[in-house]
């Protein structure tokens, strides 16, 4: 597989989606496709509706208009846990880890959907429940190794530095072995070294597991580096999409976004 490992098969199709809170339009008739295996970046100024777009995709918000077609199935509404069970995982802009739990337990929680045993066996912690715990622990350890966070395995996540928390959150999302991974500003607040690490992880996830990734990111150099395609939103409207070099040259994008020095 190469960096541009995306096939032409469409994994997710967003069609004509609109979302409003009260009178404010967060998304205004947005449409775009995500191909299987690609890294798609959504960019746009603050308040452009990027996070709302992710929230629509994984069922947290229900759009007033438009459809989402995922793996060939079109739907208007679903609950977030249903999205999860269909292989959509995500991370959050403001880290949403389970603060009272260790790194290991956070990532183990991400395995929830892979675990089936009932309450009775779990209370006894024998037979299938124990076997299941051990099997999934093994899977989680692969992720811990992958993200190089062995040293914080048993630490409570609340006390970890920001960059590591982001990494643990990525781990938790990966634990679900998602087909589609939504990353909401995975590099916000990181220094350049941490950003580099995180970019590496994202590319590795995409390559090693073939996971399709949609990410929101402000750092343009990162976006241009790691994404296969870019979608640009502005005030809830879709104003452009294309490969990074096309976006960089797009006049409308430059006017709406890149030209504005917000850094």
């Amino acid at each position, binding site marked *: *597989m*190469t*960096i541009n490992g995306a096939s032409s098969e469409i994994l997710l199709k967003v069609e004509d989606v609109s979302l409003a809170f009260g009178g404010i339009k967060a998304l205004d008739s947005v449409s775009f496709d995500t191909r299987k295996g690609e890294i798609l970046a959504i960019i746009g100024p603050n308040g452009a509706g990027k996070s709302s777009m992710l929230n629509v995709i994984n069922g947290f918000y229900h759009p007033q208009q438009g459809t989402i077609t995922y793996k060939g199935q079109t739907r208007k509404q679903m609950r977030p846990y249903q999205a999860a069970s269909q292989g959509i995982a995500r991370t959050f802009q403001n880290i949403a880890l389970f603060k009272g739990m260790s790194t290991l337990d956070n990532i183990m929680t991400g395995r929830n959907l892979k675990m089936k045993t009932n309450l009775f066996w779990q209370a006894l912690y024998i037979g299938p429940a124990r076997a299941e715990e051990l099997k999934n622990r093994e899977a989680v350890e692969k992720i811990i*190794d992958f993200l190089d966070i062995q*040293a914080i395995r048993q630490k409570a996540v609340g006390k970890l530095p920001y960059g590591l928390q982001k990494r643990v959150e990525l781990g938790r999302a990966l634990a679900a072995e998602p087909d589609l991974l939504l990353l909401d500003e995975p590099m916000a607040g990181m220094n350049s070294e941490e950003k580099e690490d995180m970019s*590496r992880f994202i590319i*590795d996830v995409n390559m*090693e597991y073939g996971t399709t990734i949609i990410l929101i990111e402000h750092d343009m150099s990162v976006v241009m580096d790691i994404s296969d395609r870019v979608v640009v939103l502005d005030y809830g409207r879709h104003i452009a999409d294309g490969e990074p070099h096309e976006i960089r040259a797009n006049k409308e994008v430059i006017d709406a976004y890149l030209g504005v020095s917000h850094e």
Partner: protein
Amino acid sequence: MSDSDKQQDLDTFPKLLQHNATRFANVPSIREKEYGIWQTWTWAEAAEEIKAFANGLATHGFGRGDKLFIIGSNRPRMYWAMCAAQSLGGIPVPTYQDAVVEELTYVVDHAEVKYAIAEDQEQVDKLLQVNELGASIEMIIYDDSRGLGDYDAEYIFSFENIQASGVEFCNKSPTFFEDQIALGSGDDVAVLLYTSGTTGQPKGVILSHAGLIFGSERVATLESLTEKDSVMAYLPMAWVVDHFLCYTLAYCAAYCVCCPENQDTLLQDKKEIGPSFHFTSPRVLEAQRTDILTRMEDAAGIKRKLFNYFIDHASRVGISIHSGEKVSLIDRLLYFLGEIYAYGPLRNNLGYSKTRITWTAGEAIGPDMFDFYRSIGINLKQVYGQTEAGPFLTAHQSGGVRSDTVGVPLADVDVKIDEHGEVIFRSPGAFREYYKDPEATRKSKNADGWILTGDAGLFDHDGQLKIIDRIKDVGTMSNGSLFAPKFIENKLKFFAHILEVVTFGDQRDRVTALINIDLVAVGSWAERRNIAYASYQDLASRPEVYSMVQESIEQVNIDLSRDESLANSQITRFVILHKELDADDGELTRTRKVRRRIIHERYAELIEALYNPEISRIQVETDVVFEDGRKGIISGNLKIRDVKIFQTTQKTG
């Protein structure tokens, strides 16, 4: 099987492997903390892995005399690769994993390397760069596939891949592996180790199977090491000590080698395993002691005072108690309380609770440092050797441990002092020659086959060897008195806040010093005093820090003034350097020994200023290499301070 048979049969490491795989089939041979638990391979399992890999190598044309370049951290597969190469009559060439491309290129070219095994993507990238620079590595095998998925170079293989072809090959030629091992003999080259060398290009030291087995068996007997023992594998694989401890000795004694999860978890991993046999360098011991004292500074008042009390008590009676001397009942009782309160928990937290023997070597250790560890119940012993010796020459015998010596020669090893005061040796374990460097070989061996160590030393009245310094470093001052820089430096390095010292005095009338402070210790000291600082450089230039260092130097001066022959070596002036001495800048070796010649060159102006009483401040600019390989300049305006010196007291000796 009688002992003589054994000597004949088991003359190579692959043969020892086969032997262990039958004798200790179910005994753990190697562990690695991976995926959160200690993955364990018994001798039988390890033998299978090695066989598969060796057969795989053979299918790719690896044969007798071929070198297998090994670069990466201590992992089971890296050690297996060594044995696999040896099984086929090949020669492993382990290399420092943090070596930069230029260093690698030299070794790859010099050793005519065609096959290489690399730990991960980072190392593979380096090897690819080496090839771009004109080397001709024909095959790169990697252990960890992470991030290597899109590498399309056709000569890159995964370890599993090689093993798979090995298994397939084995089905066709089931006895190939065993036949190849049988072809080997003790005289074969076992390993090619490049010494980092304090001067010039590295030299390839050729060690034979028989030589290494000789050394290993002496040590195994000396310390009664058996398959029940264990050791941590954390030293650089290219260092002869790691090769000895985690490979040759491990194969001879059949003990278990334990690889940590990664560098960040090393301490925790060591604590979990609690190795029964441990090797550590004086530098690590220093850092650890600094760490202990720094952390205890933050403990609550009573807790700290009690701790200090017990540590003091240990320094008074601990060593006597451990060497079975007569100690008053009260002192014994207090020591017992200290054992519960401080020493036991301390050993536990440092991971020494289960450690029978701890060896230290590589550099001289400050006597105070040495005594500190022994007094709290860590059985620390000094050993002495070098790569060319394969590697150990002398070691402390139980009951004969002294802080100022490195012990007595191992059985069947001859060590003596030549007419220049240099330590020279003859040993069946000694190296054969420097690879492709007859000139260097000739220089280091004298006509009678004695090998020069380059160290100045002397034998004590009870036959224990004392090492003074590198012979080329030992100088004379202009007034004719002896100048042994390392001796003075070690005394200073005992202070927790001093990390590194370089003293000057050869051919001079006075001694001066260049100091590196310990950022961790001084940083925490500064924090407790609310002294804000931005960087190492900032902290190093603080007058408070200067005063603290000055005090330490004056204490050392008092100490030196007690000994007539050393009184002239009192330090008169010093400067705290604006940067830490760094291996990347060539100032230290990879094993973190000071490269004096380079320091003399780089800081010539500064050194002159130290001897010019007119100058009390000097602007210095230094080229540095940053971690990411970029080059830059660090400059600083450094203060030079004078230090009080003391009159020789009448007492001597």
